[in-house]
């Protein structure tokens, strides 16, 4: 399996999780989730609305930088993606940095909208390719956004699951724990156990993540590559051969 194939498999896996959505918003710096949303829209017409933030041509917001957050609070965004320098077993995420805040070292960019969107968007998919004890920890050094809240706290959304380069976990809100759903073909249960810093539920016979549906892959290669290339040119160059000649392919 080439790196490009692995990334395409992630795109197809995520696309399948977006099929029940009406509106998916994606950050401009998130090519795999972005490509997944564009693929789901192309394949199933669902999500109907895909909004690539920070882009000009693929962003339909007209109300300024605050519209994303208002739109989420109105219940009009069904799925979103968050990452984290650290993600812990309670689905807390840390985008701030390591060590003693405020003198973090290293300091990462900051919390962005996570402390808000994590509460308001029903299906927040945590996506972090690096699967290691450095990124997946028992307890984050700084809670940019908490994975769970007490019952009296107003909370309409939260973590749906976690996707890495090795595995797919679902988050169990009641147990406040991740459960391993499937292991990607390039990994193994042992590899996951070795490289995950938090405790999680799993069964010994956790299945392998299914290979992407060939038809979906074909749609990605045929119908979505041009769109992906418009939004994420460098990424498209890396996963689609001959992207620079894509105009001629169509």
């Amino acid at each position: 399996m080439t790196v490009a194939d692995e990334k395409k498999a992630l795109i197809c896996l995520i696309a399948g999780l977006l099929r029940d959505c009406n509106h998916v918003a994606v950050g401009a710096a998130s090519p795999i989730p972005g490509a997944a949303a564009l693929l789901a829209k192309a394949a199933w017409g669902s999500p109907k609305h895909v909004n690539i933030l920070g882009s000009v041509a693929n962003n339909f917001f007209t109300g300024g930088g605050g519209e994303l957050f208002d739109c989420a609070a109105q219940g009009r965004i069904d799925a979103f993606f968050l990452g984290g320098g650290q993600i812990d077993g309670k689905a807390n995420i840390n985008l701030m940095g390591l060590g003693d805040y405020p003198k973090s070292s290293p300091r990462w960019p900051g919390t962005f909208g996570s402390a808000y969107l994590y509460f308001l968007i029903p299906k927040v998919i945590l996506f972090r390719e690096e699967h290691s004890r450095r990124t997946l920890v028992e307890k984050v050094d700084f809670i940019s956004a908490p994975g769970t809240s007490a019952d009296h706290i107003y909370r309409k959304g939260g973590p749906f699951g976690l996707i890495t380069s090795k595995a797919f976990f679902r988050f169990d809100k009641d147990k406040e724990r991740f459960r391993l759903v499937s292991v990607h073909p390039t990994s193994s249960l042992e590899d996951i156990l070795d490289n995950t810093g938090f405790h999680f539920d799993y069964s010994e016979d956790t299945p392998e993540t299914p290979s992407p549906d060939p038809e979906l892959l074909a749609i990605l290669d045929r119908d979505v590559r041009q769109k992906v290339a418009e939004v994420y040119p460098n990424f498209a160059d890396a996963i689609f051969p001959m992207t620079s000649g894509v105009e001629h392919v169509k």
Partner: protein
Amino acid sequence: MSSPTNITPIDELAGAVPDGAKVAVPADYAGVSMAATRALIRRRVRSLHLVGVPTSGLQAELLIGAGCVTTLESSALTLGEYGPAPRFTKAVRDGSIRLIDATCPAIHAGLQASQKGTPFIPLRGILGSDILKNHPDWKVIQNPFAEDDDPIVAIPAIRPDIALFHAPLADRDGNVWLGRKRELVNMTHASKTAFVTVDAISETSLFETEEMAAGVLPALYVGKIAVAPNGSWPLPFWNGAQGDDSHMRRYMEMAASDSGFEDYLEQFVFGESAMA
């Protein structure tokens, strides 16, 4: 409606930003006035309180590196794909700037509170986050309309002295066209005044058609305008240039060391002609 006297050279615009000013600036994709940023460093402005709306990037990085910033209030400082901002990282590690770390919608809400002249706006989410624990200004209050326990975060107004940004066009009356970048409108309404650099001056009124008018910031809110074609360089501009990738890579190399950053300033800020 206003006289054209508020169109000034860029160094005069920068000279009108006082030391200690609270300055609101947009995110890297929304029209950053890098031209004014360089002019501010040239004028050796000090003790700025920068407000990233809702984040900042190269602009804050340069100003921090040049020693112009006392406080950074923002939801993030990011150079995107170029990786960790070297001068910011060092300043945080050294504790040489004060951080007010927020979350994007809270920056917007604080500005909207100022825009509405109201002391605060309550906002959902945030509870249980360490940014709430560390933020000096936010308060948790009980929702007065709920009968049960319902805590909510009250975000007090953020009132910058100056909103500073780059836009495509201004007209001779002092109106500015900024399209659908309405966060610039909000941050300007929230601020005492706005200083704007523009690519060009329109000789006809921006109110001439309703199509254009829909994207206008009225002159009433605008204090100073300077013409600075491609004024967001080396950042991309939503209504114009791509980012200057090779310059950014060069910056990352040079700014990795103190002396390299000094060389960068010497070459690209104090010797501004190098830009042309």
